[in-house]
């Protein structure tokens, strides 16, 4: 191999623009561990209701809100933004601009998160799903997000090639759309609240939009970039990718009403969601076709991305199946809904992001992951953990749903029958927490090496693009 491939593998975008990206990824992984601790507490409370309930900060409702908020706005947002900036910087062909903006924005975003989580613990939560952060930190989040996003938008607008790639579309869409969403939702729900059931309707729209217009595009931006880089092949069926992109953006947000089936809302909202759930499958199928090379490739990154891709697809199919009234009458209001959400967020978004992180970090630091054992441990724990988590929640939810429809079964009996599966959920949360601690520790060790020793590349690791994978797994 010549040295040119070395230069192509670690670009200027990596070495000169690494600190904003590494700061975002570090924050994300830190919040992932914190979110895991809250999720573990919340899952224990499901089978042992007295656990920490005497402490007002940790009622089940508040811990659940803390876990969800730390996961979405701490982990997924930071990690997704980090990957989006890295991908846009690389595709742009020059050093990331406005890096100071991104750094300062990240610091303020995480300051807002810390204040907001403290607020939730002390009883300031808004009780809106995905929008639990107290009103007083919301404007700060908007400003901080725009500061981070500027860097990515500049990398897009100043790119050296005229053409664009799927990663461009998804990353720019996520960067551009989220502030609109957040401003619209907080205006209508927190600053000038609408009346009555419009609040849950708008919250349902917001939750779905966060997934379809923000988290999924962030995760896909990374996956679309990493998969062909590793397989070394063009994407099959790529000609459908633009239509799949617009399908997600235009139809995806309409699917949020599926949670309101049978509820006190206009009936067209869940009906529209039912139709939209099936239409948006086009997007998921095309993404699976485009990225199917990941399924047959080897290495850590592709293993995470394959798992994420299958979970992303399975989540959409389950959403479509449960958007029918006949199915929802059982699954609605049960752990089954929680299972679907965990499948999409943890199995889909998280695993796709982790796959991109495993690919990006060695290139950002210029050296392989410090510990191969930690990488392998995380890989096993994450995959086993998510499988048990989603599977147990789904079984518990199905039992709960069928028992709920029998009016003679008491809640005590339902709790007793779902208890074994809820214990398995706690075990799964434990696996995931340990796994996430492994990647955080590994990440910090890898980055501290660069911090202390400076940017001395271990060049031989980059002779072949797949070498990093071998080192790591």
């Amino acid at each position, binding site marked *: 191999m010549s040295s040119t491939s070395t230069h192509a593998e670690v670009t200027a975008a990596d070495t000169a623009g690494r600190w904003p990206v590494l700061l975002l990824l570090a924050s994300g992984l830190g919040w992932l561990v914190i979110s895991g601790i809250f999720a573990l507490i919340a899952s224990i409370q499901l089978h042992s209701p007295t656990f920490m309930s005497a402490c007002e900060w940790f009622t089940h409702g508040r811990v*659940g809100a803390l876990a969800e908020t730390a996961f979405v706005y701490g982990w997924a947002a930071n990690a997704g933004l980090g990957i989006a900036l890295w991908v846009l910087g690389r595709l742009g062909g020059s050093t990331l601009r406005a890096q100071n903006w991104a750094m300062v924005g990240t610091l303020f975003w995480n300051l807002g998160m810390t204040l907001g989580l403290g607020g939730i613990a002390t009883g300031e*939560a808004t009780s809106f*799903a995905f929008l639990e952060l107290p009103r007083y930190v919301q404007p700060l989040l908007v400003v901080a997000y725009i500061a981070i996003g500027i860097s990515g938008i500049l990398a897009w607008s100043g790119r050296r090639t005229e053409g664009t790639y799927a990663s461009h579309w998804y990353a720019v869409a996520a960067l551009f759309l989220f502030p609109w969403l957040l401003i619209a939702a907080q205006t209508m729900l927190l600053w000038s609240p*609408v009346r009555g059931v419009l609040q849950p309707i708008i919250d349902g729209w917001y939750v779905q939009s966060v997934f379809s217009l923000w988290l999924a595009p962030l995760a896909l931006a990374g996956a679309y970039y990493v998969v062909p880089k590793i397989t070394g092949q063009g994407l099959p069926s790529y000609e459908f990718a*633009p239509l799949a992109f617009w399908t997600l953006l235009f139809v995806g947000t309409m699917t949020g*009403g599926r949670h309101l089936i049978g509820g006190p809302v*206009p009936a067209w909202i869940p009906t*529209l969601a039912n139709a939209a759930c099936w239409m948006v499958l086009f997007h998921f199928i095309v993404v699976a076709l485009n990225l199917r090379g990941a399924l047959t490739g080897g290495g850590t990154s592709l293993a995470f991305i394959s798992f994420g891709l299958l979970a992303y697809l399975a989540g959409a199919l389950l959403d479509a199946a449960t958007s029918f009234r006949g199915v929802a009458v059982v699954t609605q209001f049960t752990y089954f*809904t929680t299972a679907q959400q965990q499948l999409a967020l943890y199995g889909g978004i998280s695993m796709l992001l982790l796959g991109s992180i495993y690919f990006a970090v060695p290139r950002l630091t210029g050296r392989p992951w410090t510990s191969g054992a930690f990488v392998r441990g995380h890989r096993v724990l994450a995959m086993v953990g998510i499988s048990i988590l989603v599977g147990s929640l789904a079984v518990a939810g199905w039992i709960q749903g069928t028992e709920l429809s029998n009016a003679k079964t008491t809640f005590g009996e339902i*709790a007793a029958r779902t208890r074994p599966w809820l214990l398995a959920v706690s075990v799964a949360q434990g696996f995931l927490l340990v796994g996430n601690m492994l990647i955080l520790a590994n990440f910090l060790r890898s980055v501290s090496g660069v911090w202390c020793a400076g940017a001395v590349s271990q060049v031989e690791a980059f002779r072949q693009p797949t070498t990093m994978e071998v080192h790591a797994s």
Partner: protein
Amino acid sequence: MMKNGFFFFIGLLAAFLLGWGGIPLLAHKQIGALAPFYDDGESSSFPTRPPGVAARGQLVYADLGCVACHTQQVRRPDFGSDKARGWGDRQSVARDYIFQGRPQLGDVRIGPDLANWGVRKPPVDAGGIAQFLYSGVVSGAKAVTHPPFPFLFDDRPIVGEVAADALVALVDKTPRRQIVPTERARTLIAYLQSLNNAYEYPEARHVVPVVAKEGAHK
């Protein structure tokens, strides 16, 4: 479109506007101005505004995150077991919530639905609810089925007479001390007792679909 930055951004903005206009704004146009229903027979309008103490109690309900386990929405009688479980005789409708500051519809039923908890059968008085919130044990049962919330209560010495709302069952067990609901507990209990959507609006009546028999006139 993918290459031209301007049109790409127009497309993104259109996607946001379609979603936002298509659901939040359209729904707002449809039910944003929903008015109370005036009943000539009873010479009053429904729903009634909750008393101030109950509105404050809803804030306590929200900040403790009760919505994580309890819904407040009854489904129609032939859709699920909601009616059979005694949660309400009719389905909840949008009009039920127009005076609620922050409706707590919820989407998980780890515990029962509470939409009509103020008029449930058999009724439980404020003292019973307080006892339940303190201990997590339903009266008559032994096992803890609900997380106990002792932080909603003051454990304080009896000075003079026992407070009127002190938890009766515990007065004898702990001599010279009493467990008294705090202000937050009192508002939360008032809120729970105010939950009542019994009034039947025209739009809430259950319509049983008539299936035409074979050979019948249409």
